[in-house]
């Protein structure tokens, strides 16, 4: 890999971020609606007594931030600068909390839950899928697991509801909702960690159950293809041990497309869990987004969208940079 390529690839990433910010800027302006006005109307229609002090502060911050009295190009430059600093403005519903603060609070929950669940389902699914296609694998692996994968036909939010009903409602082994118990204050302690873990098990399990089948089926079909390759026959002709052929010849090659899939799914981590987070009232980005959509909280929505695009673009960048290490046939040159 050349430095040229690296620079080119990083430039691409910045370009994507720039485009995302640009769309974020012009989209609401094209709609011709004023989010602040809308918000106020919504509150009034709900009969909420909007204290004039709060409204005045909100409008003032809003105008100062976006300089609505300035020409459009100036607003635009301003906006890009803010985006580059991850300054997404102030939440309308939770004034004066900034969007950045809300996201900073929510991201660890989402990433923690989704990353763990995705990695677990990837690891189990890939190994099981590989074994399912391996003629010499134990009989029970090849018969029991496929039955297990019928769960994958169930969407994971539905799986979540079923798990909640059984293990939190019928037999209250696990909590019904939340990322931690309401009476606890987030802190770094053993007790709090265990509490978080207890809250994570059901949502994580519903994701893992739903995803294992996806990884396993992908891996199985790749393994079937790879086992027909001449290098597997040659490996057997070399008198290699089955385990070596399995890991270093068959799995090692079959896993390459899986890793691309993993990168893509990690990239959508932020947006991927929205439904699960809603079902389990989990305090992640998904729940933040849901609240924002309900409350016409424009700036929060924009922040989340920008973050999602950025995280997808970033994982693509990372996978592009590490892929040549996994597959020596891929090497990047500048043409």
């Amino acid at each position: 890999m050349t430095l040229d390529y690296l620079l080119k690839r990083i430039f691409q990433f910045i370009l994507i971020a720039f485009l995302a910010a640009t769309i974020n800027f012009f989209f609401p302006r094209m709609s011709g609606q004023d989010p602040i006005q809308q918000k106020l109307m919504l509150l009034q229609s709900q009969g909420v007594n909007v204290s004039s002090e709060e409204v005045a502060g909100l409008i003032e911050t809003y105008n100062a931030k976006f300089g609505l009295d300035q020409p459009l190009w100036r607003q635009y430059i301003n906006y890009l600068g803010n985006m580059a600093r991850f300054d997404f403005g102030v939440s309308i519903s939770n004034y004066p909390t900034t969007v950045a603060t809300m996201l900073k609070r929510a991201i660890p929950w989402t990433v923690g839950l989704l990353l763990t669940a995705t990695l677990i389902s990837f690891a189990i699914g890939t190994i099981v899928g590989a074994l399912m296609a391996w003629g010499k694998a134990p009989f029970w692996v090849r018969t029991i697991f496929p039955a297990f994968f019928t769960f994958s036909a169930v969407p994971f939010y539905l799986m979540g509801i079923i798990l909640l009903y059984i293990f939190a409602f019928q037999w209250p082994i696990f909590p019904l909702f939340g990322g931690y118990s309401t009476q606890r204050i987030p802190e770094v302690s053993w007790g709090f960690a265990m509490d978080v873990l207890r809250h994570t098990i059901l949502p994580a399990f519903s994701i893992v159950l739903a995803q294992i089948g996806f990884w396993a089926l992908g891996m199985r079909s790749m393994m079937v293809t790879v086992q027909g390759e001449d290098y597997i026959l040659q490996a057997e002709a070399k008198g290699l041990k089955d385990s070596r052929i399995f890991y270093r010849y068959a799995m090692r090659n079959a896993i390459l497309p899986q890793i691309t899939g993993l990168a893509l799914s990690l990239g959508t981590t932020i947006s991927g869990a929205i439904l699960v987070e809603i079902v389990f009232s989990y305090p992640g980005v998904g729940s933040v987004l849901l609240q924002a959509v309900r409350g016409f909280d424009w700036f929060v929505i924009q922040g989340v969208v920008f973050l999602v695009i950025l995280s997808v673009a970033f994982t693509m960048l990372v996978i592009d940079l590490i892929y040549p290490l996994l597959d020596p046939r891929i090497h990047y040159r500048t043409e």
Partner: protein
Amino acid sequence: MGQSTPEKARLMAHSLSQSKSNRFQSSNAEPLLEIRDLHVHYETADGAVKAVSGVNLALYEGERLALVGESGCGKTTLALAIMRLLKPPARIVQGEILLAGRDLLKLNEEEMRLARLQDVALVTQSAMNALNPVMRIEDQIIDGLEDHGYEETKTTFRKRIQSLLEHVGLKANVARMFPHELSGGMKQRVGMATATALNPKLIVADEPTSALDVVVQRQVMTTLGRLQKETGASVILVGHDMGLIAQFADKVGVMYAGKLVELSPIERIVEKPLHPYADLLLQSVPTLDGKRDRLVSIPGMPPRLIDLPTGCYFAPRCPSAMSHCTNVTPTLQPHDGRYVACHLYHDINTGEPSTTATAEVKA
């Protein structure tokens, strides 16, 4: 089917040792490889595809045997049966494959695994994809050594691999390369280096030169010949190019529809093939630029191996076919220091060489 009893097969395999074809053999030596009445079927939904039907064969130490025949006649199946690398739906229905007196078909999986590379090695048909694309060449050879109990340091392994590569005409830096960095010819050389890594007694090479260009084909064959001489291994070469084969082999076995129909020393079969099929096959010897058109020179199609005709399988295409050819199956019998399965040369009832046979062969 199953016309030769094991006893008969044994006698016949033994009598093959009387062949004068072989430069290296001593008349009382036991054959290195002895295949007795081997039957291999592919069990498909439509029925059993009889890819190998009753092959008997003996190969002596240091001998080079070429197997020829039209595509689909069972050469690869036979080669893979020797390696015991056939996959379902293939099934070895009956027979024995004795390598240095040991029946490979009776070994357990682990014994067979150890026999591969150590006793019998395979050079595969497709040089292009026979190497693991994500591993360096040296690591792919080291794998084979390690799984046969060799525990050495990386440096020692590397020295060994360097000399293996030099023996097949490759530079030492190839060791650190990945397969996609090599040409087809280089890959096939790596294949040969790997096959000789543990000095096996037998090397099975299944069309090692297919998909290579003509010049490279000759180089690869020359290298294989040199390796054979240096290691003293016996070689079974599956091939279709009679030009290359004549340059390489001591003996030629001609296969047709899963059967060995003629087994002769190379000089003699080139001079005058006995079996009518061998005769037609040899008329299609390619010109030096590698062009050939075998399908034109042998009219008709090989039989479907799923429902084979009675009598001689070649009868429908045979220019010399006689009335009893479609009823009585000819078996491989000795004839004038060679072996042939054809009624032209043998009395149908006794299996003895027929007195009129020579008269009936066209000049």
